[in-house]
């Protein structure tokens, strides 16, 4: 399967990545190669193999509803670019209205 430039722009938009026209063309071919590589799985996997979401034969793992330690406020905010009143300060949110 090969990706069109338009599909690459759509994916870039979803990921909020700005691309030049040259980058779009380059990525279209590179991503198509990756998809083609992954498609080889379809050639070897028979129809009776269910899609696998997880590489390990593990299921039904859960933990008891028992509290554990949390980070302190200072520690939680330690790597924040900006802090105000004990909260993460983020720039104005655009593209959404509420």
């Amino acid at each position, binding site marked *: 399967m090969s990706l069109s430039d338009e599909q690459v722009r759509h994916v870039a938009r979803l990921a*909020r990545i700005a691309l030049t026209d040259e980058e779009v063309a380059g990525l279209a071919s590179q991503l198509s190669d990756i998809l083609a590589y992954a498609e080889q799985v379809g050639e070897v996997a028979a129809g009776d193999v269910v899609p696998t979401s997880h590489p390990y034969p593990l*299921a039904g793992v859960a*933990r008891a*509803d028992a*509290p554990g330690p*949390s980070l302190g406020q200072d520690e939680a905010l330690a790597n924040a670019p900006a802090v*105000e*009143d004990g*909260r993460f300060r983020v720039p*104005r949110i655009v593209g959404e209205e509420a």
Partner: protein
Amino acid sequence: MSSAYEAVIGLEVHVELGTRTKMFCGCPTDFGGEPNTKTCAVCTGQPGSLPVPNAAAIEAAISLGLALACEVAPRSQFHRKNYFYPDMPKNYQISQYDVPICADGHLDVAVDGTSRRIGITRVHMEEDTGKSLHVGGTGRIAGADHSLIDYNRAGIPLLEIVSEPDVRGPEEARAYLAELRGIVRALGISDAKLEEGSMRCDANVSVRRRGDEAFGTRVEVKNMNSLRSLQRAVAHEIERQGALLDAGEAVTQETRHWDEDAGRTSTLRAKEEVFDYRYFPDPDLVPVTPERADVERLAAALPELPAQMRARLTGGLGLSDEAAVTLVDAGLVVVLDEAVAAGAEPAAAAKWLANEVLSWCREADVDPAGVPLAGDALAELVDLVARGTLSTKLAREVLVGVLEGEGRPGEVAKARGLEQVSDEGELVTLVDEAIAADPAAAEKVRGGNDKAIGALVGAVMKASRGQANPQRVNELLRERLTS
């Protein structure tokens, strides 16, 4: 809106679970506290951290699914829902996508005595987001200067309950939400408070020409935080879409915000396609595979649900439909059951609960489900009225005393001096005094004018400062004047 249209409504309800810890980590879920003091490497999405699902949240999801007659999936999966918004520190929310833990159930709801079955598409598990504070402007995102985020709530377990588009009107939407809330509360998995956000409801509303099979364009309406607000918002939206169609215009697919004060909806954002969230299986989380035996154990442990309670109240206890609905919705059935067990007559106990107790709760701003009234205290009150020790009027005052923690009904009546004069000797003295004080009235009664007895009863009641039993006074007067 002209009646040529029919509304098609589906509801999406989120319930914040009352577990002790978050969905995928051990951070506490209790309300309040300083911002960003209940987070850890997992719920802030630090590289290398590993989420592990909360067993209690999984059980709550299964219990709710069973209560809604759903199938429980032997194997379901968590997905990442990717989006750009700072309310999740990970840039994605862990949710369930193609295989939810529970699916294909139903809920029967009644409007004006007519019951309809609403399909339940799915019940799935996900995590709550952080709380944003928008600084500058009006406090909404638009016009704000910047935003502040508290991640204490990020990661708290949520159940999302999605209905089929089977709801046909505002009243039915309200009834559905009320019934679902009752079930969630009966299960004890959440306090399910719409006003405080531990239960939230979005409505997908469309209208179509009556008789049409195809659905109209769907609009999602958000921000309804009470049953009444849901009913109003849905009614408004149906009206708005009908008016558009009447005018030959098209309904735009979008998300709209309900403004409770203005009583109308306004555009929030154009609908993002489902595809845009780029769901994919969370590689950090293995499939959820409840054991058959655990599902059976949870099914056997389901408590009495609201519909069953109402049936028992109207059937076995002989209450009216209205009383049953009121008591079940208010969460007062436990008190009623205790009172009946303590010997109270069901109808009398129910009447006190539905009228006096509920109105006291409203005034005192107390959640009726937690009313400080023991069932046997209510039984005692009902008994004091039945034996004539308290008039209904005095009993109301005694009840207030009991609710305000002054003691048991008998003690409150004594302490507040509210007991009716039941001392026969004292009553006889008062009756004789009243006859002596108004010989004209006494003569009329002796002469067969029955109405004249009212003046004498009134005089005795006045002399006893309202504490005599009027019925007994009447009897004593007749004994004196007709023999």
